């Protein structure tokens, strides 16, 4: 399992294709928002969390689907399934790689976001990181679970957002609200029900993915 994780991390760190594409896309989305919605200073606080999450979700959609694309293109899928780890473990490995990818991406995007929207994060940085991490885990879990499904269809990558976005809506609502609370310097205890939804979503989708991968990978 560690070998699979290590292999994917090495691939990405040598090429840096996915992460740089994600970063540029994320910045461009933030930029477009700036033109699409003429933000005055009083509205920024209200709209910023939503914009950040849309930039993250849209970029993530492109990046997460690639996790099995490399295997499929190089014909390594069979080798992976035959390798001596159980399929649930394969899911966890791929999930961790995707999560790491998202965290690195967010570590690059969020400073730009703070700069562009002139936000004062300061003492809330740690809480913001926790909320971003919880949201990313949910995104990575749903994305990893259905990435293989999308590749199996004729529409390939086009299919992934169609399957995953509706499922992610509760996560998104909760993540946006939680980010909003944290940015207004609320503590993690102030998250209340939104925090519970984030946690519940993460637990459900990591568990379902782990269980389901046993049944899905037949070839």
């Amino acid at each position, binding site marked *: 399992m560690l070998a699979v994780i290590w292999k994917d991390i090495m691939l990405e760190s040598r090429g840096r294709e996915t992460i740089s594409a994600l970063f540029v896309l994320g910045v461009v989305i933030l930029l477009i928002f700036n033109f699409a919605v003429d933000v005055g200073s009083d509205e920024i606080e209200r709209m910023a969390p939503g914009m950040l999450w849309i930039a993250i979700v849209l970029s993530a959609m492109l990046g997460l689907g690639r996790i099995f694309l490399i295997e499929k293109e190089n014909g390594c899928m069979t080798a992976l399934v035959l390798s001596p780890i159980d399929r649930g473990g394969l899911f966890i490995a791929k999930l961790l790689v995707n999560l790491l990818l998202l965290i690195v991406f967010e570590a690059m995007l969020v400073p730009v976001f703070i700069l562009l929207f002139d936000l004062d994060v300061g003492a809330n940085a740690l809480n913001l990181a926790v909320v971003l991490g919880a949201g990313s885990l949910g995104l990575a879990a749903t994305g990893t679970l*259905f990435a293989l499904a999308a590749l199996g269809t004729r529409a390939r990558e086009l299919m992934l957002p169609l399957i995953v976005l509706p499922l992610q809506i509760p996560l998104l609502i909760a993540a946006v609200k939680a980010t909003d609370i944290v940015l207004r310097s609320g503590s993690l205890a102030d998250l209340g029900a939104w925090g519970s939804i984030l946690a519940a*979503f993460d637990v459900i989708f990591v568990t379902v993915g782990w269980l389901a991968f046993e*049944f*899905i990978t037949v070839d």
Partner: protein
Amino acid sequence: MINKVENLILALVPPIVGPAILVSLWAIFFWVPTDVSLGLSQRIFYYHVPSAITSLLAFAIAGGTSALYLRTANEDWDHAASAAVTAGLTFASLALITGSVWARTAWGTWWTWDARLTTFLILWAVFASYELLRALSAGNEMGRRYAAVLAIVGALNIPLVQFATRLWRTIHPQVINNPEGGISDPAMQATFLISLVSFWLLFAWLWALRMRVLRLSTRTELLVEESYHWSSTR
């Protein structure tokens, strides 16, 4: 087992569905009293609520049969799940359309981002993507298994969506299980029940028919394959 259910439904239900729907239409348009505050528009409630409930039932059936399919790898369960989603989506669309028509007269707008409306639209989108996934994966086994996972996840997701959107905002009327208000008139309750039962019968019929179509088409494919094989060996 599911084949027996299918045969039973197809033997019993078809003769009753037509009369049941006619009786419910008669009750809605001629028998039930008009609501005092909402007026005529309230009558759409007898079609709107049953179709919403029926679609939820259908999606729950799809989730359950999908789990059975993953466990047993028996294609009959896969057919049952797929048929339930197809029929469920029909009723869900009906619920969205009738609700929209009612909202136009009662709230003055075709659509608002109320919690229950949003939940329902998300549900509709999840199971619409189920249909797309099935259509685009062209009947391979991994596609069917993934569709099953999607149906289960979609069903599991319902309470979470419900909870998140309700926290978000709600203005949808709470008619059933509402201590203050709600429907108390016995004729209204009877009409509602008649409608609900006839919608369930209609759903059962559509579901069983669709299941039979799916099974027959798989069998036809097998037969065609066999006949190729047979003609090539001769």
